[in-house]
């Protein structure tokens, strides 16, 4: 896989794009190492690291002992000594023991030492629900990091953005939490040239232009949101769709510009509503765009409950219908 660089390009899935980005940067930069549980010979439980250990050896791709505190601590230790570790948390629900190291050390290494030591690391976290997985395998917990200065929280929603943003994350001189919407890991394929071109961080992506309202979302919900925009189009409603992609630091300008045009905003996310990251976007609108808004902001989110086990989980998640309904509520104002 790491060797396929020169073979004819074929469309790839989001998760294949992630593998491709890691392989590219491992070839490009000796200091990049990959670590996590089962990332070695097994290639990761989602196969994100498939083939990497075979290609780069077990000193570049390390299985860790089964402890997330350990993964986080080793990662920060390596990063602060000049390596560029790309760590994997096996699932979103296993990331909490990493919070201490991320908040107390990764996010502060540069700040605390006035730049003497830094922490250029990436923590990859398969994120979110909807795959009929067991407990703790379906959590949308991005908000845990969004109030923490010194971090970047990034979430791609297409193969091309996964590739470009992961390259950017690995090259970034600061810690990046890279959340991967596992539900769309294999949703569709697209051509993603393995050209090593990174995308900018701190930029929101306008996926679809529109004039009547702005739909803002990230991660797996980009799928439903685009479908909702299609559905709305059938009713003659023109929805602009923004993939936030880089949650923090936030590129609010792109959102503000869109809302200045449309006057309406529906924010869609999978996490529970209260204090989900959608709140920040709505807050910025309330602070900076009040005079542009012709309708109240709407949030379409998970309920303020835990995501249920899988028999009920689809009832928890935002759906096309819920997004369309919110859009229509917003459009009812004028």
């Amino acid at each position, binding site marked *: 896989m790491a060797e396929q660089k020169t073979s004819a390009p074929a469309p790839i899935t989001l998760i294949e794009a992630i593998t491709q980005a890691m392989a590219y940067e491992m070839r490009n930069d000796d200091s990049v190492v990959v670590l996590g*549980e*089962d990332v*070695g*010979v*097994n*290639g990761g*439980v989602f196969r994100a690291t498939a083939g990497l250990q075979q290609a780069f050896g077990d000193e570049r791709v390390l*299985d860790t*002992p*089964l*402890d997330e*505190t*350990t993964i986080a601590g080793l990662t920060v230790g390596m990063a602060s000594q000049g390596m560029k570790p790309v760590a994997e948390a096996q699932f979103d*629900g*296993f990331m*909490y*023991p990493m919070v201490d190291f991320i908040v107390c050390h990764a996010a502060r290494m540069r700040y605390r030492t006035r730049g003497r030591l830094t922490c250029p690391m990436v923590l990859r976290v398969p994120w979110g629900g909807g795959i*009929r*997985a*067991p*407990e*703790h*395998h379906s959590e949308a917990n991005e908000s845990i990091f969004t109030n923490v200065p010194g971090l970047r929280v990034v979430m791609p929603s297409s193969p091309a953005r996964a590739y470009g943003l992961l390259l950017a994350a690995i090259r970034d001189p600061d810690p990046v939490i890279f959340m991967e919407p596992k539900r769309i890991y294999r949703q569709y394929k697209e051509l993603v040239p393995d050209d090593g071109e990174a995308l900018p961080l701190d930029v929101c992506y306008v996926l679809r232009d529109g004039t009547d309202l702005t739909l803002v979302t990230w991660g797996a919900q980009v799928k439903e949101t685009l479908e909702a925009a299609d559905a709305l189009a059938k009713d003659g409603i023109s929805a602009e769709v923004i993939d936030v992609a880089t949650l923090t630091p936030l590129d609010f300008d792109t959102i503000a510009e869109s809302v200045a045009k449309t006057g309406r905003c529906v924010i869609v996310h999978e996490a529970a*509503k*209260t204090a989900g990251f959608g709140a920040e976007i709505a807050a910025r609108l309330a602070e900076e765009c009040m005079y542009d808004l012709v309708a109240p902001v709407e949030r379409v989110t998970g*309920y*303020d*409950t*835990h995501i*249920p*086990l*899988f*028999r*009920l*989980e689809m*009832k*928890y998640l935002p759906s096309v*219908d*819920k997004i369309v309904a919110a859009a229509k509520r917003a459009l009812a104002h004028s």
Partner: protein
Amino acid sequence: MTVAAKFEIEYLQYLDADGKAVSELPKAFKDPKVLLPLFKQMLYVRTFDTKAIALQRTGKLGTYAACLGHEATHVGIGASMKPEDVFAPSYREYGAQFMRGVLPREVLMYWGGDERGNDFQGPKNDYPWCVPISTQCLMASGAALSFKLRKQDRIAVACCGDGGSSKTDFYAALNSAGAYKLPLVLCVINNGWAISVPRKSQTGAQTLAQKGLAGGLHCLQVDGNDLIAVLEAMRRATERARTGEGGSVIEFMTYRLHDHTTADDARRYRGEDEVKAAWTREPMLRLRKYLEKAKAWDAKQEEAWLEECGRKVDVEINAYLETKVQPVEAMFDYLYGELPAELAAQREQAIAWEKRNG
């Protein structure tokens, strides 16, 4: 040389892979009358396991963690506890749980994506399956602390895997159990693998049992495929716990004969030979031989019993398959003791949405 401390960790095995006694059997577990019900239970568990895997393969169950090969350890642990004790499993110790009254339909419900599987009708204070590795060990230490503080004559027993013994929560469990001298038995079920990571990659320690030394606990390593060794190890550890001598770490040496879960494909990372060899040491084999030699069991009995097991398990499976999905408001109904106003509004919204669009 001045010696600051000295330790020795015992290894227990009574029946070898051929069912031959390798040392004097403990008196309490010599009698086939004691062993037979447990052997039957092991067969029952294996029947359940096989059928659960089949259910998953046919799309009637979510991801399932099999217990194939762990039956002696699991059943032996379950048999060593009292009803009032508290058991903190990881996610595959059905053998222990069935002995405590957890229903197979509950196991299936949990892996079938329904929280009601955790609402055990039997052991009301036992912990549910625990996905975040080894956190159950530390929770069990807290349970044991509550028993000690309230002077209750109860103990806590927690299980984790070889991988789980690397988890900081496991260390926190043994550290706190030692600091407070708690009635806690930490069972490390070393089945050789943590998904794809072999035991040797987890730690530089020669045994997993010795981790207990870090907290001043009693340590023991046993053949986890030998039911008698399991029972004897648990007898010692539970007795220590009950008499105020504190906690133990027991390493049970066994083998994961199945994939990690039904979502895993072990062929990617381990050789056929290793698995083949492990089948020669598996727990049923030796106990069957032993019991047959003692004239306590024969092929005909086994056939009849397995048939009965099949029938019993099918009843459970049917009960599971017939369980209706919870209504949408179930998301809200167990979140707080009393649902706060804010949430009550969302609950109404959810119900209304379901009515219209569900």
